[in-house]
């Protein structure tokens, strides 16, 4: 239980605080497109991923079919597969039943994932699952509070302040990734991803992150192997 509460402290860390700034924007957006406050709060609980929430709210607002919305959301969520694979070695040293793992991986999303990679290695193996659950629940709590705040305060913040709040998110993701990178392949992958994504975004919208990940990650892996050889 102590590990759980230690994990929740992550909700006050830099990546999480920066995420909330972006979530304020999501809350305002959800109100603008016609979601109720209850629906605006339900989306982070169901999805636990900011880009997917915006995609889903946008589809609902435009009256898209359930199938079209589900496909768009599913495409943004493919990235959770490799991300979950990467975090799993830290989550399997516990003594509880295996389905506990399927529950806590719900919290795999960029911010919680980065916090997990930063903090899990320092925790004893048998409490890592509970610690990770704490990180996830803590950040979800902060997310719901920011969603409500953004929803209720929509339109009252000057634009330059909103822009500054939004800018902190990509910068934090990038710096936290450099911080947690361990191998040469990790470093190459960050550079490859940054370089490839803008082109993929222009040529293959919708599939851009998938293509960036497969092409950039494979290139980085090959370069990393070559440097080790």
């Amino acid at each position, binding site marked *: 239980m102590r590990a759980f509460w230690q994990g929740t402290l992550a909700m006050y860390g830099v990546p999480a605080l920066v995420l909330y700034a972006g979530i304020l924007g999501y809350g305002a957006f959800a109100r603008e497109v016609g979601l109720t406050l209850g629906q605006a709060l339900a989306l982070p609980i*169901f999805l636990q991923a900011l880009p997917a929430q915006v995609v889903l709210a946008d589809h609902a607002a435009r*009256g898209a079919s359930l199938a079209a919305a589900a496909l768009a959301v599913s495409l943004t*969520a493919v990235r959770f597969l*490799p991300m979950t694979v990467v975090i799993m070695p830290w989550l399997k040293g516990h003594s509880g039943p295996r389905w506990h793992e399927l529950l806590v991986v719900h919290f795999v999303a960029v911010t919680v994932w980065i916090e997990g990679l930063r903090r899990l290695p320092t925790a004893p193996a048998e409490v890592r699952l509970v610690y990770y659950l704490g990180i996830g629940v803590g950040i979800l709590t902060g997310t719901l509070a920011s969603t409500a705040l953004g929803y209720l305060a929509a339109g009252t913040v000057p634009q330059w302040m909103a822009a500054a*709040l939004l800018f902190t998110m990509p910068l934090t*993701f990038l*710096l936290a990734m450099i911080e947690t990178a361990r191998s040469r392949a990790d470093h190459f992958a960050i550079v490859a991803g940054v370089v490839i994504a803008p082109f993929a975004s222009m040529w293959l919208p919708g599939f851009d992150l998938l293509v*960036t990940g497969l092409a950039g990650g494979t290139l980085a892996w090959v370069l990393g192997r070559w440097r080790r050889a």
Partner: protein
Amino acid sequence: MSNLPGVWGTWGGYLPFFVAGFLASEPWRWAGALIGRDLDPNSEVFIWVRAVSSAIVAGLVARLVVFPTGAMAAMSAPTRYGAAAVGIAAFFAFRKNLGAGVLAGTLALLAGHFIIG
């Protein structure tokens, strides 16, 4: 009750979001958990998967900075790229301090916006 069009206002306004949200995204996480559980973290496959996920997140970052949406679109391209460079430089100058990098980058963005435009 919500004012959303089509199917989105039905079933109490929550079930459509559960179906197109949770059910459309969660299986990817479950698949990752099942695959990742038995994979050796030192294996080549694991190193490759880690590189793929790093490239995806880095790509997400680049997309947000290069093609900004919402309020950030009001910031000019030189301001955005310059601020990112300042943030990265400060991060390394302060021995990989996340807070220092983010703070310096954000201040640089505001300085760029109000001085250069």
